[in-house]
């Protein structure tokens, strides 16, 4: 072999390993999706904390490479760095850590002050089960349908947790769909809220919530854990961490731990979760007819969830005395996109009455939605796993 042949052979081998040689049109579609997510996050400010890691993760996961070369770089290749990071998603331990952070940064006062708002959080879970029924109609198996339907809970970590247990092969699509719709909450929810409410209802002023004592705030996570987990033990990983995080926050003697859980730890896990979820959407796994079905079902689940929260408040108001009516604009917050959906309620309320601040009232159903979707995930896991 001449030196020229030697060089040519090696360069040819190198060419075979490059992305240019292994690229397919599917890779470019996924790269475009990743770039679109990054654009949405940076230019449109749609949930940048989630969409930037996911978008960039999509780019990482869709760099074409020779999968038969044994480079150990792909997210699905056992032992690769990405695969090790992906373990938190596939084994389902990132979502409980995120829930720890959510618990540590959430003030449940609004809910404790007005416990009946918890029922709105329960009503919004209709979105999950409405989508479950439609998913069955479309031919998904019950476990797949359950994993897809949880998108209606509007809770990314819960969706990842449940899909990793019930339908691991659909997890990438479910996670991206859940986070996409969470980012699109400001676009999806307001028209529905206007559609299902009258002008008079939008003007309802709710009484300011009473001040909640520290003792009540401490009792809440303890009692919340015991009551919900006794009913649904399969929700322990999510609910346990959520209430644990909240106890750290409220007990007043673990400030350092609460700060770490709500800041550094949540940030670290969010980065890893977002990036690996994005990277798991490899073109070969992601670009299927099923994915389109999942996105359609997720959209529908979101609409049902938001609508059922609003409609439930309207029905609930029929039984409440005149001075205790609830503004149905906080019904949308029953989905657990915290605090985005509560902000939507507030903004829409202010649009119709500049002195009607609904934020704190909406935070009640909003955090109840977090608990509700975790309970719903526990129920699905209990029935189908």
């Amino acid at each position, binding site marked *: 072999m001449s030196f020229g042949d030697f060089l040519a052979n090696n360069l040819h081998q190198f060419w075979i390993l490059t992305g240019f040689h292994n690229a397919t049109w599917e890779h470019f579609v996924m790269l475009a999706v990743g770039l679109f997510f990054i654009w949405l996050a940076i230019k449109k400010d749609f949930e940048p904390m989630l969409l930037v890691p996911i978008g960039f993760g999509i780019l990482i996961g869709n760099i074409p490479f020779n999968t038969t070369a044994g480079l150990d770089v792909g997210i699905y290749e056992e032992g690769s760095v990405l695969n090790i990071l992906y373990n938190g998603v596939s084994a389902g331990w990132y979502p409980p850590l995120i829930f720890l952070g959510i618990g540590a940064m959430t003030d449940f006062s609004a*809910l*404790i*002050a007005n*416990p*009946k708002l*918890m*029922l709105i*959080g*329960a*009503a919004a*879970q*209709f979105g*999950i*089960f*409405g989508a*479950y*029924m439609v*998913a*069955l*109609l479309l031919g998904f*198996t*019950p*476990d797949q*349908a*359950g994993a897809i339907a949880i998108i209606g809970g509007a809770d990314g970590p819960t969706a990842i947790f449940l899909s990793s247990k019930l339908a691991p092969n659909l997890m990438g699509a479910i996670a991206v769909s859940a986070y996409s719709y969470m980012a699109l909450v400001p676009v999806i929810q307001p028209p529905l809220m206007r559609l299902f409410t009258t002008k008079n209802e939008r003007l309802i002023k709710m009484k*300011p919530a*009473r*001040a*909640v*004592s*520290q*003792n*009540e705030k401490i*009792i*809440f996570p303890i*009692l*919340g854990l015991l*009551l*919900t987990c006794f*009913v*649904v033990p399969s929700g322990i990983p999510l609910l346990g961490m959520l209430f644990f995080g909240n106890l750290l926050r409220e007990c007043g003697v673990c400030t350092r731990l609460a700060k770490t859980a709500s800041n550094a730890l949540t940030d670290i896990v969010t980065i890893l979760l977002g990036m690996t979820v994005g990277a798991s959407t490899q073109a070969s796994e992601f670009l299927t007819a099923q994915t389109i079905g999942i996105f359609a079902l997720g959209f529908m689940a979101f609409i049902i969830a938001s609508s059922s929260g609003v409609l439930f408040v309207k029905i609930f108001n029929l039984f409440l005395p005149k001075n205790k009516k609830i503004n149905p604009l906080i019904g949308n917050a029953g989905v657990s996109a915290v605090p985005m959906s509560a902000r939507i309620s507030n903004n829409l309320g202010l649009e119709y009455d500049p*002195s009607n*601040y609904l934020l704190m009232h909406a935070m009640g159903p909003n955090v*109840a939605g977090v*608990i*509700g979707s975790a*309970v*719903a995930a526990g*129920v*699905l896991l209990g*029935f*189908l*796993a």
Partner: protein
Amino acid sequence: MKKIFITALVAAAALFAANDASAQGRRGLRLNEVMVTNDSSVVDDYGRRSAWVELFNSTFAPLEISSVFITDDPSDPKKYPVPLGDVNTRIPKRQHVIFWADGEPTKGTFHMNFTLRPGQDNWIGVYDADGKTLIDEVTVPASLAPNTTYARSEDGTGEWEVRDGSEGSHVTPSSANVIRDTNSKVEMFAERDKNGFGMTVMAMAIVFSALLLLSVCFYIISKIGERYSKGNKAKSQGSKLQELSREDRPDSDSGEAIAAIAMALHEHLDAHDRENTVLTINKVRKAYSPWNSKIYNMRQAPRH
């Protein structure tokens, strides 16, 4: 002294819990299937057929069974100690392991020092490492025919039954007594609840009841808390608690008016709710240390 006592108490509780957890794991070990006469069934590593006893880890965690005792004699519970130091004695969750009752323990960890007696009742027991705690036992009937097994109807649970290798009564050494190739729960939902209505009704009922329960509990707690805090406030102000009647209350309150009233009350009574107040005192001091001293970091000027 009190602190030391509490620390000791917590440590003792942790130790007790750890021991208990380990014991709890061992208690998940089950006798699962037994063959007394083996003429045509599974062979051991030496290519020989002997009686065998299958153990099953019924827990959902790996189980280390070294130092557990297996015996065929109730009066000698420590007859065959499972040897230490063999990695294969760690049974993965929900998995099986076979011990050969060939009376030749020198052939390896899984060869026991006793044999089973065909034509007689064979009692087999598994004892924990203390040699006293009986984990599981079974008496294999004398009538058990050659190449048939006495097995649990389901792994780790269920009634014992004779398995003769016929359809639906398979002999299953080192594998599940009931072989499942699908998720029975999913199958059941797919068959019985095709439109998902049943799931929706059940799940929503559970979600609602969980949150309703929480809601009711907190309604009660908030009422108690409200009364307690009102009482305390009134007590601290030395005044008698008196609520305005509904007629005396203003029809509509603007936010500004409420804020003004609250400020006035605050000024007048200095009575306000507990607030989160964080006082941060940053000690600004440049402590001397050789590590931050410039003279140690800079080259000394040469002397002339």
